[in-house]
Each structure stands twice: as structure tokens, then as C-alpha cells.
């Protein structure tokens, strides 16, 4: 059952990711990305991260992606033009990608030969309660700093996107 689940959503995720990369139109890429995120959210559930799964759906698939789509529509971005080029990326990109994947895979296989296994419900530490407890005890300072970060980000976004810079 776990296998089925994993393969199904892993497949969806990879397929959507491929789609993100190959689609010519940004809006299609964006929608594909939503698919990736949703399937990752399911995998989170399987890994026992229920809070994160919900956050993933709400924050990523919801807020962030909506923002993307807004911008795409606002700028009326069409299919990308073919002008411009990067010799470095075109020549070295494909072999590098293969090498990257190979070395990552090698590292994973080498580093986790046996590894543990994941079963649904095998870990229940990812509830909202647990996360909340950790956030407000051990990770209180980073958490608070995060609020500053977000504030700065908001201000930065406002300043940058203002109509006239004076």
C-alpha cells in the first residue's frame, strides 16, 4: 500500500516537474508546479508531516502560486521568446545535469545503503501541536526573527513595486 502510494505520487510529482520545465508558456508551468506541490504534500502526509502537508497546500500551492499567476497575468507574459543564448548553459548544461544526478544518486545510495523505511503512521511527531511546541520553545528566537524577515520582505516588495521611484 505504502509503495503504491509512493510510486503514484512520486510519478505525478516527476511528471509535473518535467512539465514545469518543458512547457513553453509560463502559465502552464505554474499550473504544473501546483501539481508538483500537491503531490509532495501527499508524500509529506505519508512521512507523518501532517502540519507541513497542510502548510504546503495552503502556503505554496495556495498563496505563492497564486502570486505567481497574478504576476504572469499582470505582465501578460506569453510564450518565451527565443532570442538570447548562453553557450555555457547549452554546452555544459546537459552533461552537468547528468553528472549532478549521478553524483547525487551515488551519494544517496552510498550514504543510505540500508536506511530506514517509511510506513504510513510510523511517525506521529509532525502534528500541529508538536510543531507549535518546538517553535515556541527551542526555536523561539528564529521564529521571532522570521517575523522581522517577513516584515522586511513586505516593505521591500512594496518599495520595489511602487509605481514611481522618487
Amino acid at each position: 500500500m505504502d509503495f503504491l502510494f509512493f510510486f503514484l505520487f512520486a510519478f505525478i510529482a516527476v511528471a509535473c516537474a518535467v512539465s514545469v520545465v518543458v512547457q513553453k508558456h509560463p502559465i502552464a508551468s505554474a499550473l504544473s508546479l501546483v501539481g508538483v506541490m500537491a503531490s509532495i504534500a501527499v508524500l509529506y502526509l505519508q512521512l507523518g508531516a501532517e502540519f507541513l502537508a497542510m502548510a504546503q497546500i495552503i502556503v505554496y500551492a495556495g498563496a505563492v502560486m497564486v502570486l505567481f499567476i497574478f504576476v504572469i497575468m499582470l505582465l501578460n507574459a506569453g510564450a518565451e521568446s527565443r532570442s538570447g543564448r548562453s553557450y555555457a548553459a547549452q554546452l555544459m548544461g546537459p552533461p552537468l545535469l547528468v553528472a549532478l544526478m549521478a553524483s547525487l544518486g551515488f551519494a544517496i545510495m552510498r550514504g543510505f545503503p540500508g536506511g530506514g523505511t517509511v510506513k504510513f503512521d510510523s511517525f506521529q511527531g509532525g502534528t500541529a501541536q508538536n510543531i507549535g511546541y518546538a517553535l515556541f520553545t527551542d526555536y523561539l528566537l528564529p521564529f521571532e526573527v522570521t517575523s522581522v524577515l517577513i516584515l522586511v520582505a513586505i516593505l521591500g516588495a512594496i518599495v520595489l513595486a511602487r509605481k514611481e521611484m522618487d
Partner: protein
Amino acid sequence: MQNLWLIPALPFLGFLINGILGKKLPKMVINAVAVGSVVLSFLLVLNIWSSGGDLAANPIHQHYFTWIQSGEINIGWDYAVDKLTLIMLMVVTGIGSLIHVYATGYMAHEEGYYRFFAYLNLFMFFMLNLVLGGNYLLLFVGWEGVGLCSYLLIGFYFVKKSASTAGNKAFIVNRIGDFGFSLAMFLIVVNFGTLDFTKVFAAAPGKSTETLTAIALLLLLGATGKSAQIPLYVWLPDAMEGPTPVSALIHAATMVTAGVYMCTRSAVIFTHAPIAMDTVAIVGLATAVFAATIGLTQYDIKKVFAYSTVSQLGYMFLGVGVGAFSAGVWHLVTHAFFKALLFLGAGSVIHACHHEQDMRHMGGLRKYTPVTMAVLACASLAIAGVPGTSGFFSKDAILTAAYGHAPWMFWVGVVTAGMTAFYVWRAFWMTFWGEYRGHGHPHESPWSMLAPLVVLAFLSIAGGFLFNVPKILEGMFPAAEEVPGESMLMGISIAAGLAGIAISYYMYVVNPKLPQRISDGLGGIYRLVYDKYRIDELYDATVVNPVITGSRSLLWKVMDQGVIDGAVNGVGSEAQLAGGWLKMLQSGNIRSYATWVVLGAVCLLILIGVAEGVTR
């Protein structure tokens, strides 16, 4: 007398007041401040003179604060007064007061009146520091300080290029002398561990002759700078660019005698260094003759007196060099009287002739300026060494001592005395006898100028009796050797002086065509002497120009910009070449950059993998 510091402080206060506020003050106030401060100092000195009877046994020494202190070396701001200092103080403040009074008249119509008196007061401050200082460094303070004031006052008419150049020359030539002086001080500290006069002189007899000779010779280098001796005399004639009271005060009576004072002060060191003593005597004698010959030919009245000053300073050094320190100081005092008078009188003459300094455009002034003529006659008699005048006593004392040391020095001195009498009286005849050859109407000077002249004239005649310096200084220096046949020597020197006067009378009054014929007859030699032996040109050609062109073309252009910068820029261009290749990578394209990042990441991963593989 408890407050020695007041003596220099008063002129300094005058300097501050006139210097800062002078522009807005009325002339009366400026005069009162400038003259008043110096006269007050003079009164303070008189007070010491009259009250401090036993200075020989108990010199006054006052310590105010520590100036420099490091390790075991401690240099205080100390003032000390002994007999020698007292004489110098009298000369400086006394003649200083007279010249201040004179200057109020002479400078009355000049621009920058307040500036002039501020500088003059500053000079008094430094000069008093020089003579009051209780250690070499404080003496050096005054020494450099008077050099500064001399620079400022020579360049008083700074719009004139020649004036400011003369000021620079004076300062820089003095600096060369100071180079020697400061090296001497360093040697003194290295060997004695202190600069205090009392301690140094107490310890000096125990030191090796080589050490003391080195110190003495370096001190002498300093003295040749300040007192305009060979080889550093060149600045003094040029210094006549300054206003005449300055020439009188600084470049005749006080500052230039500082070298003599310093050598006398260091008598203990010099007496233990025979070679240095001989050098002093020879330098002095050579300067005396050399300058006197130039003086024979000059037409600028101030230049004549300037070379005369150089020559007379040479006499003083001769006195010091042959061991007759008190005679040297005596001549210093009397020379201060008659040379100040000569300059001030010359100033009066120049004033009368509407700022004409060339004697060929004077003449016949005895009708217009009788008082000036009378006082100048007194001074000229004194400098010629006519019996009874002040110059006679001191010059005779020096020449007698020189005979005791080495007879040839005496004979050279006598010849110089003759020349001195000749050129001073030549100037006198050319100025006051004959017909007036200048422009405009000459007029007598105001009484503010004449009164000091009269006082000085009195001193020039009677100064030898009033200030019997050898008697005052008795016991301070080793007694001069007894010289046999003293009266005969005296007769010879008197004869030389009188002969000089007589010849000049014959050449410039009786037979005025003669000088021209003589100079024509001498031809090239005359030109050479008239051009002051072209020493300035020699220095320019051998020192000044090589240094400047060498610095410019060799050091700056070749060394600095060529070699050093070239080497650095060479490294730079190599780097640029390498940078040119690397620059290709900086395409500005984000995707290219990202590719490089991925390349780096992959390399890292592989490296880590290899490392893992190695460790396993």
C-alpha cells in the same frame, strides 16, 4: 631678582597684542606696546645688573617646567644668568630698545606697521631666550627662533621677489648651520647624558679630546651659519633686503653675534679641543679678510656695512679662536654699538635720500644732515679703531691675543683693520663729501630717529670705558697669555687704522678720479671682487642646481614614476592579462553564471565522494 621669565615674556606679550590686534589699533598704542615692552625688559635687566653683585659666585638659575623627558634624558625650560648672559642681556635689550624707538620714526609711513613691530618683539623674545637659556636646547630654541624672525623681517616687503628669496636663503643657510648645531647637541647628550650647561661643562674636562673636538667643530658649523662665517656667510649680504632697523638690530648687533656667544658659552669644550680652536681662529680670520676685500668695492651703502659686519664677526671668532674669549665678547659689545649706529645712520641717510641706497647717487650730505653725519663719524672712528673709541679697545685686545697665539694671525688682522678703516671711511666720504648726486631734496630725519643715534654715538665712543668686558668677565675664562711688546702691537694696529682713513680721504676727497683708474687697472680681479667672488654662483652651480635638477629628473621622473611605479604597474598589467581571460567568463548572463554554479556543485559532490571513498 626672582622672575627671569618676565624678561622674554614682556616682548612676547607685545608680540601677541600687536600681532593679533595690531591691525585695528592706533599707531600710538602699537608704539607704546612695542617699545614699552622692550624698555621694561631693559629695566628688568638693569635691575639685575645693579642688584646681582655676586653673579660669578652665585649665578641665577631658574627652572620653570620640564620640556622634554624621556628615559634618563630630561630637558627643562630653565633660565640662567651669569656675567656673560648679563652682558648679552644688556646689549640685546639696550640696543633693542633704541632700535625700537628709531623704528617708530623710520617705519612711520610703511604699510604693515603693526606687523613689523610684532615681528620685532617676537625677535626680542627669541633672542632673550637664546641668551637666557640654561641648556643647549633652549639656546637652540632661541637660535632657530631668531632665524625665523630674521626670515620674516628680511621678507618684510614680501611682494618683492628678491626680498622673499633673501629670506628663504637666510633661513635655509642657517638651517645648514643648525644641522651642525643639532648634531653637536646629539653628541653631547650621547656623551654627557644632559644638555644643561653647568653639568656639561663640569664633565667636559674628563672626556676624550676626539669627542670634544667633534662636538666643538659641529658647534662651529652652527656658529658659521648664524654668524655668517665662511662658508655660510652668503645669506647676510642678501639679508639687507629687510628694513634698515632690522639690519641694525638683527643683522649687525644681536642675532649674528649669537654664534660668538655660543662659542664663548661653550668655552670649556673649545679650550679642551685645540684643533677646533685653531679652526675657529682660521675661519674667523679668513672671513675677516675675505669680507673686507669685498667691502672695498661695493657701492650699496648697506652692502658695505653688511660685509663689514661679516668681517667684524670674523674678528670676534678670531678672538674666540685664539683663546681670548672675553676679548671676543668685548668686541661683540662694542661692535653692537658702532655697527648698529652705522646701520641706523645709513638708514637715516637712505631716508634722507628718498630710499636711495647707492652711494654713487649720494654725496655732499653734510650740508643737509649734519646730525647724521656727526654720529656716523663717531661710528666710523670707532670701527677704524682710533684710540680712545670703543672699537679700539676691543680690536686691540683681540689682535694682541692673536699675536700671542701666532704672529701671522696678528699681521693678517692688522691688514684687515686697515681695509676696514678704508672702506668705512670711503663710504663716509662718498656719502657726506663732494656734491649731491641724487634726486630730490635730501632732508634730515625726525628726532625719534636721531635720538637713538645720539645715544649710540656716545656709546660708540665711550663704550670701551663703560663696559670693560674682560674685567667684568674676569675669572670666567682662562686668562690670556701675557704678550711681550704689547704697546708696539697697539701702535701698529692704530697706524693701520689711521692709514686706512688717510688713504680713503686721499682717494675719495682729494683725488676722486683715482679709484676708477685703480679698478680699471685691476680689471678682472676687480670684477671678481665686485661680484663677491661669485660665491653665490658657485654654490648655485655646485649645490643648488644639481640638487633640484637631480631631484626632478632623476629621483622623481625616473626613480619614482619610472622604476617604482613601473614595477608595480608591470605586476598590474600581468594581472590584467590574466584578468582578460577570466573576463570572458563574466558574460553577464545569469544562465551562464548558474551553469558555473552547477559545475562547482558537481565538482564539490565528486570531491566529497572521492574523499569518502578514500576514507572508507
